[in-house]
């Protein structure tokens, strides 16, 4: 076995870290939190030029053929930097779905995504179906569509939404123009922007239907696993930053005339965080390799295990980070509480711990 990152992946990670260090900060994050549109033109252009938009996609689709390990190297850094730029929401997430759908229509849209010309987002969840991503409750009635999609992460600026719906027993994936939908925009737990789509007797044209049936089911299932792995990468980046900052705080914060890091109870908390972080890194490396596996049961078992593990242990690190910081840890002014929100957010998006424990049991039975 070999757990070393390739030279190329290391370079991607280093470049991303340096870019975000020079061009993003906690202050920028806090002002971006107040904005309705999270697409920052200059940084968006820079990310395009850094090659991030093409990285996740095969060369046959006009991408640079990076694997999940490469993409996660960037997402880890965006997690560590609390960066709200909608790189995953407007590029990786819709792009991977379009790639997996793999029709000439979907690939044409993907080309625009890679070129930074499209504003596409994924609206695949609704309040009735939860994270049963291949079983949407939205239903077509002939060529009319009424109903809602919730928590569509769209950076506040998507022009088109990829939506799943049922037509009779058949699963469809549609590309809906935002201008024809009623939309309510809001902020999510992690500070990112999202929408609810309210569809009221929207007329569907054949051109809006990207794929059907088994193609749609397989595309969504592969997409879901890919996104679960990226959730873990983002949580890892955030959790390792929480650990670093908390360790530094314990070394410098003085109470009872000495650094709180000299107290045994604080030392043991920090050691627990350190050990958990090591295990989280192991799970991340595991899931990044297995989430793209050809064998579905192996893929599902790996992503379910990783997401369930992160939902308890990464969250635990964030909680302990706040606890060791004390009062200042629960303020908006300090970054720790924002990491806590980010990690909690990612632990819930694409399925909570309970959901993934259930998936793990199903996948285990299938092996």
């Amino acid at each position, binding site marked *: *076995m*070999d*757990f*070393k*990152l*390739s030279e190329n992946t290391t370079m991607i990670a280093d470049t991303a870290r340096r870019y975000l260090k020079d061009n993003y900060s906690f202050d920028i994050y806090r002002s971006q939190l107040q904005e309705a549109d999270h697409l920052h033109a200059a940084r968006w252009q820079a990310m395009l030029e850094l090659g991030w938009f093409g990285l996740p996609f095969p060369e046959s689709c006009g991408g640079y053929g990076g694997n999940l*390990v490469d993409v996660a190297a960037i997402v880890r850094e965006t997690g560590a930097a609390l960066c709200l730029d909608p790189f995953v929401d407007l590029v990786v997430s819709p792009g991977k779905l379009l790639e997996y759908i793999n029709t000439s229509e979907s690939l044409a849209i993907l080309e625009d995504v890679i070129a930074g010309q499209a504003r596409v987002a994924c609206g695949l969840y609704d309040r009735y179906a939860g994270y049963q991503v291949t079983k949407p409750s939205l239903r077509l009635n002939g060529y009319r569509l009424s109903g809602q999609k919730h928590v569509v992460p769209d950076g506040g600026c998507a022009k088109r939404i990829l939506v799943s719906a049922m037509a009779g027993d058949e699963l469809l994936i549609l590309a809906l123009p935002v201008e024809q939908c009623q939309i309510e925009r809001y902020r999510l737990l992690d500070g990112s922007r999202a929408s609810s789509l309210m569809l009221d007797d929207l007329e569907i044209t054949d051109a809006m239907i990207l794929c059907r049936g088994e193609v749609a089911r397989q595309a969504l299932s592969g997409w879901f696993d890919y996104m679960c792995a990226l959730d873990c990468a983002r949580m890892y980046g955030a959790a390792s930053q929480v650990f670093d900052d908390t*360790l530094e705080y*314990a*070394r410098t914060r003085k109470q009872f005339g000495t650094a709180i*890091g*000299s107290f*045994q109870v*604080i*030392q*043991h908390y*920090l*050691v*627990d965080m*350190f*050990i958990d972080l*090591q*295990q*989280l890194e*192991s*799970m991340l*490396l*595991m899931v*990044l*390799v*297995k989430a793209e596996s050809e064998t579905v049961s192996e893929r599902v078992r790996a992503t379910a*295990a990783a997401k*369930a*593990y992160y939902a308890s*242990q990464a969250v635990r690190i964030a909680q302990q980070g706040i606890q060791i910081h004390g009062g200042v840890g629960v303020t908006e002014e300090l970054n720790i509480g924002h990491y806590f929100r980010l990690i909690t957010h990612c632990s819930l998006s694409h399925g909570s711990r309970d959901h993934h*424990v*259930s998936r*793990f*049991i199903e996948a*285990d039975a299938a092996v």
Partner: protein
Amino acid sequence: MNLEFSDEELAFRDTIRQWMKANVPDDLRRCTARGAMPGKEMQQRWERLLGEQGWLTVTWPEQYGGPGWTATQRYIFDLERASAGAPPTSPFGVAMVGPVLYTFGSPEQKDRWLPGIRSGEMLWCQGYSEPNAGSDLASLKTRAERHDDHYLVNGQKIWTTQAHWADMMFCLVRTDSTVKQQQGISFLLIDMKTPGIEVRPIYSIDGHHHLNEVYFTDVKVPVENLVGTEGMGWTIAKFLLTHERTTIAGVADTQNEINRLKAALATMAENYDKHQAARRVAALEIDLMALEYTNFRTVAATDEGKPFGPESSGLKIKGTELQQSVSQAMVELGELLSLPWDNEQPIGNEVFNRASRRYNFLRACTIYGGSNEIQKNVLAKMLLGL
């Protein structure tokens, strides 16, 4: 990144698997399947069998009779050993005093003691803890006074696992009480048949006799049984703490326990809440996966020649916590079936019949080998600089 075993490693695995299948004694296999621990005769018969193959001392360098396997091969060997239903080998000779001897011992000491450890003929025990020196090991008081060609040892050791089986004890003794605590400690090898040694049993909460008190009254130990020099004992003890132990997390045996639990759950009655039990087991399997991949990473790093440092403390902490969680789940999921203590015939699946004994036994695993709290103190100092 590559998370698969190579073709050569898979071929190695098959070889080991076949050998285990043909050679793990039936009585030993049945003993493990019941969740029981083998007695001295059964354990030693198995270790001698491994010794004949040269597979008892798999972690040793080739020049001392190790098989020259990579860390990955040793890890695979351990997986196959556990899944074939064989228990771990006793650590005191093979994993503890052996490495001390080939690292710090004189040529005469190596020639004299290593062969018996390699073959499984000679059993060892560890004389570290004392009634007033547990976690604070450096405060130990057992004295060894130099008289011409021998030391005279007086004092008491406690929690000495398998002292009633052992031929020899490796022992930390105080040879100088005028210097700093740590600097006055020496490492002695003591023949358990020497006059003046008394071994008294301690029964632990699993109802069995593993532990002992050992009393020394004017015990004569030849000076050639001193390892290293006087005052080197603490250095040697610390060496053992970070000595490579790629199987310290106990992944193979914990996986085996989970498999036994899953098989037993399948036999439960119709009205048993299998759904709830499956969720509990899944959570444990997920925790095991995180430990397993962390262990894989340390194994891979070892094969790349990177030293296996204080990370082994992390594996020990997580590994023992998980052993306890699995054994607790076994007792709780067995419900009524876990209550009988000394019945001959299991009232349900035999896995549950022994589960409460094992659960009791495993309360010790977060204490022995340096309690988890001590491990955390070490990590805080060495890794976090606190």
